[in-house]
């Protein structure tokens, strides 16, 4: 009853493609949202360029309302929205939406913690030159924190590779789902090993790329 590897390989290849698509898609959208929220966190912080207690508190609460919710429950909770946005609540694409929400909020926190270590002097210098908040965000905050930011996003990427297994819950594909349903649930160690090795290779690749880029942008 173990899988027949001759027919199983194509399935793995397909799943690899699904994982990559899920991770990249989630990462792209979540980065945009997450970096946005993270920046908002930072700029509305006490003593910062757009100091705003109300906005900061609202964001802070919002993010922390979503983050502790177990993913499966989040998935169910947002399913009406998923249906509206993606047309369905099942399948790989339907998993991307709740994954994106979870990842966005995680990224927001990572971005926030990376931004606080920017030297306040350079922000001041930009302000003194008349830069508006948007300019400060794009020309100072992001570039100055790029090294650690990339490491942070790499962290999230590897987490997403792990996380993408959750897609299986709603009938989505991907290597993680295969590892779960063909390996774990069927007690088939060979499938587990193969899929996880591929997941690990993916993660290593992402990490190498992240390390390389962060070193490049860190200039240190």
């Amino acid at each position: 009853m173990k899988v027949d590897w001759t027919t199983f390989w194509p399935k793995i290849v397909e799943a690899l493609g699904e994982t990559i698509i899920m991770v990249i898609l989630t990462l792209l959208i979540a980065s945009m949202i997450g970096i946005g929220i993270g920046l908002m966190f930072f700029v509305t912080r006490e003593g910062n360029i757009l100091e705003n207690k109300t906005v900061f508190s609202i964001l802070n609460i919002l993010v922390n309302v979503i983050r502790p919710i177990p993913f499966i429950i989040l998935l169910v909770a947002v399913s009406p929205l998923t249906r509206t946005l993606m047309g369905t609540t099942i399948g790989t694409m339907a998993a991307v939406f709740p994954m994106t929400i979870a990842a966005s909020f995680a990224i927001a926190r990572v971005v926030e913690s990376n931004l606080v270590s920017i030297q306040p002097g350079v922000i001041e210098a930009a302000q003194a030159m008349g830069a508006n908040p948007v300019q400060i965000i794009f020309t100072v905050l992001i570039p100055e924190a790029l090294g650690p930011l990339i490491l942070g996003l790499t962290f999230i990427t590897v987490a997403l590779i792990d996380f993408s297994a959750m897609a299986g819950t709603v009938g989505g594909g991907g290597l993680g789902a295969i590892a779960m349903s063909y390996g774990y649930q069927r007690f088939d160690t060979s499938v587990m090993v193969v899929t996880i090795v591929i997941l690990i290779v993916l993660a290593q690749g992402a990490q190498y790329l992240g390390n390389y880029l962060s070193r490049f942008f860190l200039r240190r």
Partner: protein
Amino acid sequence: SSSAEGNDEKLVKLGVSSADGPVWDLLVEKAKSEGINLEIIELVDWQLPNDALVNGEIDINAFQHLAFLSQYNVQRDANLVPIGSSFVGPKGLYSEKYNEISEIPNGASVAISNDPANMGLDLSLLESAGLIELKDGVGIFGTTEDVTNNPKKLEINAMNAQQTPRALEDVALSAIYNSIAGRAGIDPNNVLYENDPLSIEGLPYVNVFAVRAEDVENETYKKVATLIQDPEIKEAYKKDTAGQGEVVDVSVKDLKQTLERLMNE
């Protein structure tokens, strides 16, 4: 820690599927009046309770049907045996959009469970409903790979068993235990086709109390397994499943035979 000895003082650890929640509280009460100190360990996941049983971390588990148990025994080369039956309930094919199986259009999507035992059952439901054909002799653990004929070109989506009721809105047809459908608030009239749980085909899907082989004669454990047949518990379970599930009493002999058969498949 656990013990194989049937001692009244001893704590008996019973691993259960948390989905059946309140019934177990009643069982604990009943056990207490019999002088058995029963501890319920709720497990959301379905894979670990058997490992835990094999390793002696729990004494009995009651979350799986024979089909599932047989698969575990085979794959892990384990020897867990049933000492009593618990619940059973029909599983049906539900739809919110259609009233007849025949109305299901070409290319429609169908939601089934992704765990091996339930997937096999769901596929066999689809087969008996005349929607697909499965490979000959596929047994009860068929997978989507075993579909040999799919005249309506149905798109079969396998997902978590708890997710099939939730996907109902997005699919033409969804395989759901009637008991769960009740809890999920699905109109029982939406069932287009259901199996008979107590037929020969249904027997593999009778939930059982399982123990390690060496404990099969443990009186305390046996007692626990029979306590479920208490009328009060039976009633409670019926209520919990909106009448869709029931506690059954299948003889241990039948259970063992069925398990044997399944393991040889």
